[in-house]
C-alpha cells in the first residue's frame, strides 16, 4: 500500500492513531451533509401533531411507523414505483450506449463538423426547461401520433425518449475518454482493430468508474424528474414516483408525515444500490507505470 511506501521514504512523525485521522474530517462533514436526511426520517415517523412544529422536533415522543403503509395505500405507489424504475433503467442503459458512442467520437475521432456539432449539443443545456417544455411537448405528441404510439404523450416512453441521450452524458464521457492514455488504442489501430471494437474492448473496460458515475447521475436525474412527467402524463397509471409524492402536497396544506415517508421510500433504493455498487466506482485495476505523461 502506498502508506507503507510513503513511510519507507520518510521518518515516521507521529504515533499512529487506532483509526485513520481522516475520520476526524469525514465524520463532521458527513453529519452536515446528512442533516436534512435526519429531518426527513424523523418527520416520516412522527405523528402529524408533532410534525407541525416550528422549530422542528428532532426527538419525537411518539413514533408512528404506520406512516409508511399509510403512504403506500394513499395512491397506487407500486405502479408508480414500477413506472419510475422502468423509465430510469431504460434511460440509464440508453445513455450509457449513446453517450459512450458520441463521447468517444468527440474525444478521439476526427470528422468534419466535429467542433460545430459539439458546440450545438452543448447549447441544448443553456435554455431553461420552462421555455423548452412546450415545444418538447408538441414534438413528443407529434412523434406519438405519427411514429410510435408508446413514445407519445401519456406513455412512459415519452419520459424515456427525450432523455435517451443527454448533452451532459456526452460532455462527461468526452472529457473522461480524453484522459485515458491513447497508447492502448493506438496499438490496437495498428493491429487493424475497428473503432467499435476498440471502444468496446479497450476504452469502456478502462472507464468503469466514469460509466458507473454517469449511470448513477443519470438514474438520479430520471428518478427525481418532476416537471416533464407532470406535463407529459395524463393518466394516473402512467405516473412516476415524484408525481405520486406530489399527491401529498395540497394547495394550502401538506401531509408532511406521509410525504416524508414517501420520500424515504423513494430515496432508499437509490442509496442502497449506490452503496452496494461502490466497487464499480473505484478503479479495480491500478493503472501501472504506463508513464502516460
Amino acid at each position, binding site marked *: 500500500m502506498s502508506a507503507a511506501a510513503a513511510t519507507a521514504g520518510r521518518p515516521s512523525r507521529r504515533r499512529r492513531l487506532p483509526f485513520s485521522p481522516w475520520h476526524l474530517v469525514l465524520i463532521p462533514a458527513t453529519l452536515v451533509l446528512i442533516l436534512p436526511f435526519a429531518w426527513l426520517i424523523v418527520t416520516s415517523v412522527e405523528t402529524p401533531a408533532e410534525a407541525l412544529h416550528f422549530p422542528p422536533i428532532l426527538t419525537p415522543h411518539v413514533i408512528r411507523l404506520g406512516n409508511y403503509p399509510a403512504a403506500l395505500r394513499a395512491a397506487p405507489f407500486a405502479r408508480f414505483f414500477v413506472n419510475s424504475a422502468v423509465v430510469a433503467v431504460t434511460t440509464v442503459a440508453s445513455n450509457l450506449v449513446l453517450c459512450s458512442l458520441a463521447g468517444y467520437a468527440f474525444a478521439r475521432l476526427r470528422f468534419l463538423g466535429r467542433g460545430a456539432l459539439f458546440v450545438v449539443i452543448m447549447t441544448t443545456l443553456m435554455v431553461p426547461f420552462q421555455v423548452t417544455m*412546450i415545444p418538447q411537448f408538441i414534438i413528443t405528441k407529434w412523434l406519438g401520433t405519427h411514429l410510435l404510439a408508446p413514445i407519445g404523450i401519456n406513455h412512459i416512453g415519452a419520459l424515456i425518449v427525450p432523455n435517451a441521450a443527454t448533452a451532459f452524458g456526452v460532455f462527461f464521457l468526452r472529457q473522461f475518454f480524453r484522459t485515458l492514455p491513447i497508447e492502448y488504442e493506438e496499438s490496437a489501430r495498428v493491429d487493424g482493430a475497428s473503432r467499435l471494437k476498440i471502444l468496446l474492448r479497450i476504452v469502456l473496460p478502462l472507464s468503469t468508474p466514469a460509466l458507473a458515475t454517469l449511470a448513477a447521475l443519470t438514474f438520479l436525474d430520471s428518478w427525481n424528474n418532476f416537471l416533464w412527467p407532470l406535463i407529459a402524463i395524463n393518466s394516473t397509471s402512467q405516473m412516476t414516483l415524484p408525481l405520486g409524492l406530489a399527491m401529498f402536497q395540497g394547495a394550502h396544506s401538506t401531509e408532511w408525515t406521509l410525504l416524508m415517508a414517501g420520500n424515504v421510500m423513494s430515496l432508499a433504493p437509490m442509496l442502497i444500490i449506490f452503496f452496494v455498487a461502490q466497487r464499480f466506482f473505484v478503479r479495480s485495476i491500478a493503472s501501472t507505470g504506463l508513464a502516460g505523461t
Partner: protein
Amino acid sequence: MIRTFACTSLAAALVALGLAACGSDSGSSGAAAGSIQIWEGYTGPEAKVFAHLVSEYDTQHPGTKVTSLFVNNDNSLQKVLTAVRGGSLPDIAYLYGSWAPNVAQIPQVVNLTKTVSRPGVNWPDFWVGERDVATVNGKVIGIPALVDNLAVVYNKTLFAQAALQPPQAGWTWDQFSADARRLTDAAKKQYGTAYVTPGSEDTVWHWEALLWEAGGQLLTAGNKKAAFDSAAGLKALTTLRTMAVTDHSMYLDPTDSAYGNLFNSGKIGMLVTGPWDLSTFPNAKYGVQVMPSFAGASGGHQTISGPDNWVIFNNGAAHVTAAQKFLLWLTAPAQVRYFSLRTGDLPTRQSVTDAAGFDQQMDKALPGVSTFIANLGNVRQSRPQIATYPKISQALGTMVVSVLLGKAAPQAALSTAAQQVNQILANPNG
C-alpha cells in the same frame, strides 16, 4: 463484462417497451366518448371525498366515466398552458380564481353564462365573491369550486397567560395592535402576530382586506387608475408597519412556510388566515374571530375571499355536455353539503349554510369553522378582474414588503406603487 452489460441493457429496453405498450391506458384526455377527464389537486380527506362523489356519479350514470388526474394546484397552470399549445386539454380543470381574467382568453374555455342561468342551478345561491371571480367581462367562465375568507385565529392559551380578553366581535385594529404588543415576549421568542412577506399575492391580499375596511378602493371605477394611495391606503399600511417596525410584534415569514407551524407551537398569538389552516393547528387551543375594523371607517369588518373555479374546456359537443352535466351535479346543494361536512371546506352555496344544524355539525368536525362560514357574509367585493392584476399585485407586494422591512416610509411606498400601477394600467400589453 461489456457483453453481459450490453445484453442486460438490451433486455431492459425490450422489457420497458413491452411494459409501456401494454401498461398504458387509452388515456389521452377524454378520448373515449362518454368519458370526461378532470384535472384537480385534492389531497388527503378532500381527495377521498371527491373520489367518493365521482364513483357515486358513475354509478348513477352508467355510460359516463369520470376520470380524475391529480395535478398539484400550483403546477396546474403550467400543465394547462402547455396543453393549450399542444392541443391536449382535459374536459374540466380546477383553476385558481386569480387566474380567471387570463384563463378567460383561452379560446377553448366554454362560456357558461347560459348554463348557469338554467332552471334549478340557482346561480345567485353562490356567494357574491365566487360569482365575481367566475365572471370575466360579463362572461361566466367557471363554476365555483372553493370559497374561503380571512379571519383572525388566536391562541386562547396565550391570551389567558397574558391576562387578555379574547377578541370580541366588534373589536378594532387598535385593539389588535395592543393585543399583539402584549402578547409579544422577546425572551420567550413569542410574537403577537405574523405576516407573510414573499411579496406575492399572499402578501398583498391581507393588506387589501385592511384597505377595504378602511373604506378605500384598489382602483378607480372602471379600473382606470390607482386609487389606493389614499388616506385609507395609508391607514392600512401604517397599521401593519407599527406592528412590524415599531412594536416588533409581528413575525415576518419570507418563505410563507413557517408561520403556521409557529402558531401551532404556541409561538404566535394571532394570525390573519383562512379556514384551510385550522386543521394544521392540532396542538394549539385556538379561537376564531372576524377581522377587526377601523374605528369610524365605513368598511366595517369586511373581509376578502379567494375562490377557485372549475373550468370547462371544449373537446367537442359531446364532451362539453357531459362535463356540464357532471359539474352541475357536483355543485348542486346536496353534493356541496356532503363535501363540506366531510372535508371542513366552506360551503360554496348559501342555501347549504341556511340548513338547520349545519354550522354546528361543521364546528364539531372542525372547531371554529362556523365563524368563517358566517364571515362569508362579510365578503362584499372582490379584487379587480383584469388581466393585468398579476403585475399590479407585484407592485403592491413590493410596496408592502418594503414598508414591513422598514426600508420605505408608507406614504412614499404608496406613491411609488401608485405610479407603477398607473403605468401598468396605461400599457396593458407593455
